[in-house]
């Protein structure tokens, strides 16, 4: 059992408060740290990783302080968001160096490289790697000592769908093995697919915590706004408003488009193409007009 305890932690940089009085416990299994860009996720992860001191409060691992305690890294593996690594090394040299710094040998490095399926490219220079390959070598470097805690900052950024799936499988496996895995993301779908437990951070504050289904419902039940252009806007509007999944439709004559407010997200997304087909209407544009994360999160905070 390895647990990270964040107790009334705030962190400010000059006048800017990046993290504001957050208390949470991260235990075994996969936890997703969700929040829009600039919410303070990286600041929080940096404090959990011992690279930043809390301005107030404490961050501990099983009761031991993390800040200024290098022995804690026997239990923590870190996958930073930043791309920079020792680009002049080959993947294998890099992971071997990481193993040696833990007092381990090349076998540990090879095992970690096998875990992330990077053996095929291990003798190429890191500077030639794609983003996804870099991410996997970073993972390998964090796994060499089989840590009980794994911290990942935006691990899926820039990965293609296949790489994303692979990494998700790997993290899920780590969580199932009883490791404490925490990753940050600003994309709800990522967090939802992977994490059984979600912590939401908005503007430095702890906005929500718990099961993803609860948070998902909060997020999907909110009214969604869509902008739709079609071959017959009025006929489409008339047909859509008859269904309870829409709450309002505005015909924007100057724009030549419909502004639709949907209240039942799931039902509406199934309804729209069906109605269009049934009425012989062609859809030119369907775009969500308030999908910006800020609006999603502000809705969540208000809820």
């Amino acid at each position, binding site marked *: 059992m390895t647990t990270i305890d964040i107790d009334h932690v705030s962190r400010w*940089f000059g006048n800017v408060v*990046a993290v504001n009085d957050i208390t949470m416990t991260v235990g075994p299994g996969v936890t997703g740290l969700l929040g829009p*860009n*600039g919410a*303070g*996720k*990286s*600041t929080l*992860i*940096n404090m959990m*990783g*011992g*690279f*930043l*001191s809390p301005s107030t409060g404490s961050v501990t691992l099983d009761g031991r302080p993390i800040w*200024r305690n*290098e*022995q*804690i*890294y*026997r239990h*923590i*593996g*870190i996958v*930073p*968001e*930043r791309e*920079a*690594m*020792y680009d*002049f*090394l080959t993947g294998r040299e890099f992971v071997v*160096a*990481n193993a*040696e*710094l*833990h*007092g381990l040998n090349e076998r540990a490095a090879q095992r970690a490289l096998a875990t992330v399926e990077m053996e095929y490219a291990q003798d190429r220079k890191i500077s030639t790697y794609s983003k996804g390959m870099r991410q996997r070598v970073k993972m390998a*470097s*964090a796994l060499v000592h089989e840590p009980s805690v794994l911290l990942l900052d935006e691990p899926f950024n820039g990965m293609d769908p296949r790489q994303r799936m692979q990494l998700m499988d790997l993290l899920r496996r780590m969580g199932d093995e009883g490791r404490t895995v925490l990753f940050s993301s600003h994309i709800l779908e990522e967090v939802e697919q992977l994490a059984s437990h979600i912590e939401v951070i908005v503007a430095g504050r702890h906005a929500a915590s718990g099961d993803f289904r609860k948070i998902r419902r909060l997020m999907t039940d909110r009214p969604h706004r869509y902008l739709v252009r079609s071959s017959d806007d009025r006929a489409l509007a008339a047909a859509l408003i008859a269904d309870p999944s829409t709450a309002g439709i505005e015909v924007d004559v100057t724009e030549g488009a419909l502004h639709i407010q949907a209240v039942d997200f799931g039902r509406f997304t199934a309804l729209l193409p069906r109605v269009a087909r049934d009425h012989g209407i062609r859809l030119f544009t369907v775009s969500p007009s308030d999908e910006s994360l800020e609006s999603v999160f502000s809705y969540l905070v208000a809820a």
Partner: protein
Amino acid sequence: MYDPTVARLTYRALLGRRRALILFALPALLLVIAGAVRALTGADDQIASNVLGGFALATMVPIIGVIAGTGAIGPEIDDGSVVYLLAKPVKRPTIIFTKLIVAVAVTMVFSAIPTFVAGLILNGNGQQIAVAYTVAALIASIAYAAVFLLLGTVTRHAVVFGLVYALVWEALFGSLVPGARTLSIQQWSLAVAQKVAGSDLVTSDVGLPLATVLLAGVTVAATWYAGQKLRTLTLAGEE
């Protein structure tokens, strides 16, 4: 105190970067100058001392010290890759000490050896001048590496500050303000060189006992403080 893995990474980072070209260019320039001077004026002890004191020790050694000292840690902190060293159960002073050893070794190889060879070219080590300046370069390498390693740990503008210290403070202020020379690694190492040469061709403004104390004190203090700074190094997030 010494970690071979940290050392290996540091060597490869130092010698693999484009900056490393200066490490080769400056000694090459020194040898070209030495060859040209010898060809034009013949062997002359005073001129040999002027070239080694004025270019090798006053310019080349500190610049190579800046490149090796700041380069041993600065770029890693700048781009954030130092996190892979820091996220390990390795004592911070061990990381600093190891990097210091590497920086000292690189500075010595690229400054002291060319200084000795240039001395041989200039006057065949007459009056022990080549040996004296080589000893000065070896000693200065240690202090420069330590000071510039500390600069690389505490500031992102370490190269600029390092060059300002080496060229403006030591060279410019040192020649205008006599007092500034007391606080100059170059003068301290010259004090040792003066002892080795035992003639008026190599002189320092600082006495040998004081120079020894200052050299040792600065090296130890800079290294200790760099270790402390690394313990509390804060990696700012991207946000």
